[in-house]
């Protein structure tokens, strides 16, 4: 049986709003676990902060995988991409809010910390870059801006993704492999967009 065909058929049947429902439900459920259970251990503030941030990185990976999956394997998940992008933003917003309100607990200190600590500066730039993308993730904005300007703006996803991963690498103590894997994968997915086109066309043809 053709796996690609099966995936594409299944994807056609799944409405995109399921991404929003599952994503929002997941975000709220994690908050519930941290607030009212011991699932996150005896110090849930930092644990929840990290969980939201890491899911944000995972969703960045998923969102950036959609184009290569289509171009390489013919798997078409493009209709979910906007929903995944919007959920990415909300998880990173939640990550920031836990950091600011529950961890640092002072907006003044959030500002001084973000300015003073490079790993926070980098993370903040990544978050801020996602804000206009979230705001313009609707058909009205695409029409209003025009496709070219809209795509140019949404190019910000690439630096946001790499800076987000750098933020995680920078935070690690000792030699830890996981943040480096995120950084490598996200750099790879961005680099894919800038690969020499001719060579990849040749490769696609030889494969076909």
């Amino acid at each position, binding site marked *: 049986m053709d796996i690609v065909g099966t995936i594409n058929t299944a994807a056609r049947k799944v409405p995109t709003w399921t991404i929003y429902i599952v994503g929002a439900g997941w975000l709220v459920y994690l908050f519930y676990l941290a607030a009212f259970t011991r699932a996150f251990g005896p110090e849930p503030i930092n644990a929840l902060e990290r969980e939201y941030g890491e899911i944000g990185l995972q969703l960045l990976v998923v969102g950036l995988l959609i184009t290569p999956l289509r171009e390489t394997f013919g798997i078409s998940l493009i209709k979910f991409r906007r929903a995944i992008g919007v959920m990415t933003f909300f998880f990173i917003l939640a990550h920031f809010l836990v950091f600011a309100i529950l961890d640092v607990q002072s907006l003044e200190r959030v500002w001084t910390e973000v300015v003073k600590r490079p790993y926070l500066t980098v993370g903040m730039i990544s978050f801020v870059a996602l804000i206009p993308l979230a705001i313009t993730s609707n058909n009205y904005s695409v029409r209003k801006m025009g496709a070219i300007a809209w795509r140019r703006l949404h190019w910000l996803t690439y630096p946001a993704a790499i800076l987000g991963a750098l933020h995680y690498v920078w935070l690690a103590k*000792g030699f830890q492999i996981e943040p480096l894997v995120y950084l490598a994968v996200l750099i790879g997915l961005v680099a894919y967009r800038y690969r020499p086109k001719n060579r990849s066309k040749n490769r696609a043809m030889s494969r076909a």
Partner: protein
Amino acid sequence: MAHRWKNDLTHADVTPKEAFLNRRQILAGTAGLGAIAAAGLAEAQEDLQPNSLEDITSYNNFYEFGTGKSDPAANAHKLEIEPWSVKVDGLVDNPGDYSSADLLDGLTVEERIYRFRCVEAWAMVVPWNGIELADILNKVGIQSEAKYVAFETVVQPENMIGVQRRVLDFPYVEGLRIDEAMHPLTIMATGIYGEPIAKQNGAPMRLVVPWKYGFKSIKSIVRISLTDYEPPTSWNKANAREYGFYSNVNPNVDHPRWSQSSHRVIGGGLFASREPTLMFNGYEAEVASLYDGMDLSEFY
């Protein structure tokens, strides 16, 4: 000699274990005040509330068993602690390989309820059972040229996932200046809440230096060496700019990546307020004189 320092908390005398497992408020007692005055040490009037045993045994940094806070609780059961041997060497009168029983035999185990402040800006309160390190060092005999004490953590690569992943340059090593090591607040802990210390907390014996960041309190010790030079220490080797040899708790000297002026409180839940961090973790009266004349922002 033991009992040179005592806080006003003697909860084991007055509080049943079930109650402190419930993290009940512990009332300050005044027993032992006279003994402290005799020892010439400041009385720390305080009302520390120990964390639950569950908090203490489920939130740990022990990178030999992984870098996540719950990794040591999940993986440390593999640590083999019987038999246990501690190599004592360097500038000592009685060097040799000591079994844990031989090393600690005849010395007094006391309860010490200490604040524990991690360099990562979180803190808990732990009711340790331990022996003053000075008693152990006196037992092995300190030679007059000794100026520092070096410690080493066990390495059991087949049992330690973090060692296999080379998270740090293992074995983990730490060190103290001899006057820090001989200070009555410095203990070799062998228990928590009257039970043998859990493996994720550094069984069968670990250092506790309550006025320094937690990583100085090296776990699962297999070697104690007296030296006349400042010994290398693991986090300092990994990143000297971030982790100094002294690493005294100091709210005025930030870690390069985060502020040390306050910390998260373990066990307080998602909506717990941060607490201000105290100079020398609240033991300023006891230890500040060790650092007279030193610029603590230079010797961090």
